[in-house]
């Protein structure tokens, strides 16, 4: 008998209780404790910011008008980055960032996209990219998390290998909980992508005597630009 059959046989045999009876005795799970978390948008934003701040994630709230320009200015002021990785022009975010290419905002950044399989430019990605800008699928207020589904335009390593990860989050897509994301977006029903990620802060470790250190294997900084409508701007103190 194969290992598979032996293991399964043992499990089936081991369940001496009548199966129907066993299952009937496990009540349906009550997710109320997770489902009940409902916050207003300002409250969600605040929770998100607080949770991110706890793990050294940087959150900057921007109104939608000319946000790419404002973001670029902020990055120029607050990072040393020169070599920047962005999504391609046919991607929504890539399109919004297109002026970067022409240096229209007065920066001298070297900009490139993740346009080839990793095998062809691995060393460059690991050693010669300072910062990557990605979109996000959603955000989670309760835990201060970003939800990413990497795509051919924004592959997995984009949010992982460069020392600075910049993520753009639309406040309209800020959920209360991970549970709510799964429910509303019906992940299980629509099928899972190759890779789905929750990212909550820059990479960190406490493996040396419980002392927190950031930037162990992944990004050393995580900068999140949250886009809000004008009317939210005052509430959120957006520039």
């Amino acid at each position, binding site marked *: 008998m194969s290992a598979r059959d032996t293991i399964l046989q043992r499990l089936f045999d081991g369940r001496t209780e009548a199966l129907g009876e*066993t299952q009937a*005795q*496990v*009540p*349906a*799970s*009550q997710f*109320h*404790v997770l489902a009940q978390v409902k916050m207003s948008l300002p409250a969600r934003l605040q929770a998100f910011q607080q949770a991110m701040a706890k793990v050294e994630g940087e959150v900057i709230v921007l109104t939608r008008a000319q946000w790419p320009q404002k973001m670029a200015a902020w990055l120029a002021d607050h990072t040393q980055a020169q070599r920047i990785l962005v999504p391609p022009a046919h991607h929504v975010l890539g399109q919004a960032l297109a002026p970067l290419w022409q240096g229209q905002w007065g920066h001298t950044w070297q900009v490139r996209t993740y346009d080839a399989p990793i095998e062809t430019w691995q060393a460059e990605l690991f050693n010669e990219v300072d910062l990557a800008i990605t979109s996000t699928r959603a955000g989670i207020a309760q835990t201060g998390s970003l939800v990413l589904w990497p795509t051919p335009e924004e592959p997995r390593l984009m949010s992982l290998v460069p020392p600075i990860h910049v993520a753009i989050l639309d406040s309209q897509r800020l959920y209360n909980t991970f549970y709510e994301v799964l429910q509303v977006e019906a992940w299980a029903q629509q099928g899972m992508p190759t890779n789905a990620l929750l990212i909550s802060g820059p990479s960190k470790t406490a493996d040396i005597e419980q002392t927190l250190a950031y930037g162990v294997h992944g990004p050393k900084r995580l900068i999140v630009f949250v886009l809000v409508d004008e009317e939210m701007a005052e509430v959120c103190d957006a520039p």
Partner: protein
Amino acid sequence: MHTSSSSKVAPLYTNAAPAQQASHRLKVYPPKPQKVYFFATCLVDLFYPDAGMAGIQLLEQQGIEVLYPQTQTCCGQPAYTSGYHDQARAVAQAQFDLFPEPWPIVLPSGSCAGMMRQHYPQLFANTPEQANAQAIANRVFELTDFLLHVCQLQLKDEGKPIKVALHTSCSARRELGIAHVGETLLDQLAQVERIEPKRTSECCGFGGTFAVRHPQISAAMVEDKTQALIDAAPHFVTTDCGCLMNIQGHAEKTRLKLQGEHLLSFLWRRTQNDA
């Protein structure tokens, strides 16, 4: 609504309801009875009869008649936790006949109360005594819990000002969920300042036969517990004789200035005119 409870989840895999999980939530306090049965437990009987007498006097002060079955011996816990369940069951069953009338059964020990209340149903599962064991278990109360919640005990402190550290046994704290009882009772005493020792919920290292099967670990634990109590106050009280024997024994052996006492003895002493 959130409706599931551990009492529904738990029975799936165990023959009887796992005691650790649901038990103390299901506890129903009876109205104050005329009489109670007093189960002294072997440690109180042999080493700390004053704690038993204090408990009896506190009950009598509440106008409750204390029935003391003279033929009681032991709840069976030592054998139970050592894996000798046949022997534990035989000894436990020998106690059943001590309590013929439906009065509550009170014990001056969280550990033994925990054994009877939480483990008897498991121990007698699938035996002819199952229902009987469950009925007995439901009637069992740790004495300070009973005094506080059934008798609504109100203490009047007659003693001098004193600082006291409380060590609640792990069985009282976690098996019975009554850690608040000792605190509440001590806090009723006007002249008593209760100091919370560091790591108050940590075990003292007694654990019955653990203390002799794993003496080195047990020693490390009781050293730390003794130190934590001394750091809090020179006087400590505890709900269980096992802890008392362990901690007091260690303090004496190492000549540390720490005086221990059973909580019941302390409460009784403090409320007497000559205290």
